[in-house]
């Protein structure tokens, strides 16, 4: 299969590989895909109090297109506010990397990963606000086991 130079560049020099602390209240984590399907993406964002994505990190189990799609996704969402980031479409990722038709699902997964990370962040924030609103509760909710 012939891959585009952009795809190969993201595969060979992936941007923003790594792990953020999933228990940090400013971090949202998205884990999408399944090992049995041959691709798993984990995308994490650190969001400022103003709602801007200050940092993004990923790790991906998958083919070259999956790795490149997630690398590109982290590059694109950094510096955007969460609503802008949530509006990124898989078709934009597929177009940028010139994904062949059989690899379109990789871009779908990357879009899902962005949305999932943002939702996780929003859910954490909502839980924290609810907690702040009821000061009688002991502030130990952060020790709940995370699925990751």
């Amino acid at each position, binding site marked *: 299969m012939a*891959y585009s130079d952009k795809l190969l560049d993201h*595969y060979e020099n*992936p941007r923003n*590989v790594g*792990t953020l602390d999933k228990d940090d209240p400013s971090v949202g984590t998205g*884990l*999408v*895909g*399944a*090992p*049995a*399907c*041959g*691709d*798993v*993406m*984990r995308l994490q964002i650190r969001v400022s109090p103003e709602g801007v994505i200050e940092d993004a990190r990923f*790790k*991906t*189990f*998958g*083919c*070259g*297109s*999956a*790795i490149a799609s997630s690398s590109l996704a982290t590059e694109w969402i950094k510096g955007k506010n969460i609503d802008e980031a949530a509006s990124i479409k898989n078709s934009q990722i597929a177009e940028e990397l010139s994904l062949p038709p*059989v*690899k379109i*699902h990789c871009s*779908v*997964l990357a879009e899902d990963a962005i949305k999932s990370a943002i939702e996780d962040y929003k859910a954490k924030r909502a839980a924290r606000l609810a907690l702040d609103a009821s000061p009688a509760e002991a502030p130990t909710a952060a020790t709940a086991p995370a*699925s*990751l």
Partner: protein
Amino acid sequence: MALKFPIYMDNHATTPLDKRVLEAMLPYFTQDFGNAASRTHAYGWHAEAAVEDSRETIADYIGAESGKEIVFTSGATESDNLAIKGVAEYYKGKGNHIITTTIEHKAVLDSCKRLEKEGYTVTYVNAGPDGLVNPADIEAAITDKTILVSVMLANNEVGTIQPIGEIGAITRKRGVLFHCDAVQGFGKTPFDVQRMNVDLASLTAHKIYGPKGVGALYVRRSKPRVRLVAQMDGGGHERGNRSGTLNVPGIVGFAKAVSIFKQEGVAEADRIRGLRDRLHGAINKELDSVFLNGHPEKRLPGNLNLSFSFVEGEGLMMAIKDVAVSSGSACTSASLEPSYVLRSMGLDEELAHSSIRFGLGRFNTEEEVDYVAELVIGKVKRLRELSPLYEMHQQGIDIKSIQWAAH
């Protein structure tokens, strides 16, 4: 010696032509170019003599009684089609049941699927987790309607060598014909149609350093005499079993490739096994969570099928593009399904996606093996750094305990 890139380690797919084979073939393109069916002049007689010599060489090598039992074809796919459909059609008055295995090549499986559409019944026997077919499972599947059993000599993905002699003893005892797709094992592991009671065998030249586009079907002529309905109509070549002008240079090359195996095959298998074990040993020394697919000993000398857990096969192949190998990963096929052979062995889908098949052959060197081992080790380590699954594994999280959303 300088390495030539990409390093070819996909010898199950095809092999390069041996130069000695090419030399043997060349005169039959331009000088002795006659049609082996031409009876009226020397061009035809020369071509026919070369074909008959080749027939004897190949028959002798597989333990056949005579060259008359060799039907030349365009390759193994045609041989498999002719054997299965030809037998099914000829013996349909006797029965309509065929037994094969889930790890056969598509040429066998899809021929069987075609017959199912035509009203035949096919039993697909599973291989065990070690990639070996249990002869007892074949025997248990035989009914009074069974006309044919088809089992491969060696599997093309995991290289496992099937108990052909044991299965042949069963089919002979039960009066059922036995076809063996011998393409992968032929030359690399002992194969003898008499000793193993094989009635039909598919062979091809390009897996044994011969040319592409030429193969053969062994068809037993006595005890029992096997009959076929030809699948190609025309001039009635090959005793009416396969019409079509013979590929004389190809057939000469095929026989030359066989005679090289006859001379050098045993020593070569030892050398290739040594290279394979060297590659495996080097990888195992440096990497954890690497699994060998298929039986550790009952496998082709050049076959090393490994699953690199937490790394996806196509992603890995992209990283090791200096080496020509293949993967059981879904991503290498249009179907997006991982290897049906690995799945039918009961392998975890994650591990099927993580598999790489190294196929070593005649022209691989120790230097190449060392280069490939180092490359693979480095790239697997790098991709594991990128893998969320490896991170979870290191943290002691059982990946199977997570509820994954299938997509």
